[in-house]
C-alpha cells in the first residue's frame, strides 16, 4: 500500500476544521503536545511503516523547500 494523497474525505473542510478547533484555547506548548499525541495515534492507525515513511518524507519536504528558499534569498 502506498501513501494516498487523493482527497479521502467527503468534506475536507470538516476535517481541517476539526483539527484547527482541537487547538482552540491551547498555548503553543500544549498544541505541540496535542500534535505529538495525534501523530502517534494516527500513525498507529495506519500501521504500515512504508506509508508512514512516505508521509514523513512528504511532510519534511516543506522544511527542505523552506531552507532552499532561505538560501536563495541569501544569495
Amino acid at each position, binding site marked *: 500500500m502506498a501513501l494516498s494523497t487523493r482527497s479521502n474525505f467527503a468534506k475536507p473542510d470538516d476535517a481541517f476544521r476539526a483539527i484547527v478547533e482541537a487547538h482552540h484555547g491551547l498555548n503553543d506548548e500544549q498544541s505541540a503536545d496535542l500534535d505529538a499525541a495525534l*501523530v502517534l495515534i494516527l500513525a498507529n492507525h495506519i500501521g504500515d511503516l512504508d506509508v508512514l515513511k512516505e508521509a514523513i518524507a512528504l511532510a519534511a519536504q516543506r522544511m527542505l523547500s523552506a531552507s532552499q528558499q532561505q538560501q536563495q534569498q541569501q544569495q
Partner: protein
Amino acid sequence: MALTKTQFGYRRHPDQDRAGADIAEHAVVVVGAGPIGLSLAIDLAQRGQSVVLLDDADRIGEGSRAICFSKRSLEFWDRLGIGQRMVDKGVVWSVGKIFHGESQLYQFNLLPEEGHKRPAFINLQQFYAEAYLVDRVEELPAIDLRWRNKVTGLEPRNDGVVLTIQTPDSAYRLAAQYVVACDGARSSLRQMVGAEFAGQVFEDQFLIADVKMTAAFPTERWFWFDPPFHAGRSALLHKQPDDIWRIDLQLNRFSDPAVEKLPENVRPRIARMLGHDKFEFEWISLYKFQCRRMGKFIHGRVIFAGDAAHQVSPFGARGANSGLEDAENLAWKLDRVLRGTSPEPLLDSYHIERSAAADENIRESTRSTDFMAPNSHQEARLRKAVLSLAKETEFGKRMVNGGRLSTPSIYETPLSTADGDSWDGGPRPGASMPDAPVAGQGGEPIYLTDAFIAAGTGFTLLEFSNGAAAERPDGLGTIRIGGQGGLSDAAGLAARRYDAEPGTAYLLRPDGYVAARFRHPTRAALDAALARAAGHI
C-alpha cells in the same frame, strides 16, 4: 561468597623458559578470561581442541556488572555442563513491570508459554557466573589457563600470530594459529591490530547501586519513568541472589560523579525508593554508556568476540548475552577449520552473522537509552505523548521502551539453505532451535535441548518420524521424534513449535541454529545443505 573461589595464583609455565626464536606453538590462544573467553575456551575444549587462555589479572572482578542472563545463554551453558549450577544459584524471572509516576503502565511476560527447560532470564552476579566457568575450566585438562599473563604485543603472520606476554617473572613469546581476543571493551588487542571502535557515547550518567536487604518485593523487573522518588528521571529495581538488589538511577547530564557517588547522597534517594532505609550498600558506581562496534570482527588470524568487538548500553541485557552468542557461534567453526573439515572462509560467516547481531543489539539498546534520556525537546515531547497514551491504549503501552530484553538474532547467512517447502511456523533457517518437552524411551521427561546435547557436538538432524527408514549422511547426530525408538511428543508441542508433520526434518548446526528444513528430505538435499552449512560452498 565463601564457597566461591575468586582468587587464583600465577604459575610459571615451561613455555616461558623457551629462548629466542624457539617459541612454543599452540593452535588457539584465547585472550581474556571474562565470561566470553571462559565460555569459548570450554566449548573449544569440549570439541577436542587444546586452548591456552590468558588473563592479565589473577582474580575475578567484583563490582556491579552483568546480572541478567538470557535463556539462550543458559542453553549454551547447559552444553558446557554448567547451566544447572547457574540456574540453581540464580534468581529466575520472566515478568517485568513498567511504571510511570505512581501508577503501573503495563507488565510483560517474556516467556508466556510452558514447556521450556530454561526460564526467560535468571539474575546472577557476573562474578558467580565467572567463578562457575573457572571451576569448569579446571575440570578440563585441554585448557591451560594462565593468570597474570598480559598480552602486550602482537605480530601478525600469514599462518598465525606471535604474542608477547608480560608476566610477574618476565615477558615471553608464544605462537598461535589463531588468537581470539576476548579482552573486553578496552581491548588492547583491538588497538594492536589498529582497528577502530566507532559509535555513540550517551551523555546521561547512570548510578548503579547494589544494596543488601531482605525485602518482600516480587522477583520481577520493575522500571519507572519519572517516579515520585526520582522526579523526571528513570529508575530500575531488580533482584539478585544473596538478598542483593540492583538499582539503576538515571542522573542528570551535568551532575558531578564524585558528589553523586557519596553514600550520604545516594542513601536518601534509595530510601525514598524502597520506602525504608534498612539496607546496606555493596557497591555504588557511576556509568556513562556507549554503543559501538568494530567494523570487522576478524583481522587476519585475530578474531574478536564479546565486549572487545562490540559494546552496548546495559538496558536490554545484551552485553554478556550477545558475547556468549559470539562464543557459541565461533567455537564450532574454529574447531572445524583447525581440523581441516571445513575451509577457512567458514570463519567469515562468524563476522557476517555476529556483526549483524551486534548492529541489532546496538540499535535496540540505543533506542531504549534514547527513550530514557531523550536527546531533544521534541523527542521528549513525543515520549511524553507515548507515556500518556500508554495509560489508555494498547499501542501506547507497546511503544513505551524501558529496555527490550535480549533475544537471539535470526541470521541472514550464506550457511542457510533457503526454504523450498511451505511452512506456517517453526524456526526458519538462521533461527535458533526452540525448546519443547518430550519423553525418552522409558517415558522420562526431557527437553529437546537435552536431546540436542545427547546427539553430539556436530550437525544434528531433528526428524519427525513417518516410519520410513531414510538414508542419512554419515556423522550426523540424530534426534528422532515418534516412531520406533524415537522420543515421544505426547503433548504435540514439539510438532507445533516446529510446524512439523510426519517426515519433517530440521538440520541443526552445532550451535543449535537451523541450517535447513524439509518436509521430506532426500539424501541429495541433505548432503547439499550440510555442505553449505559447513562452509563448503
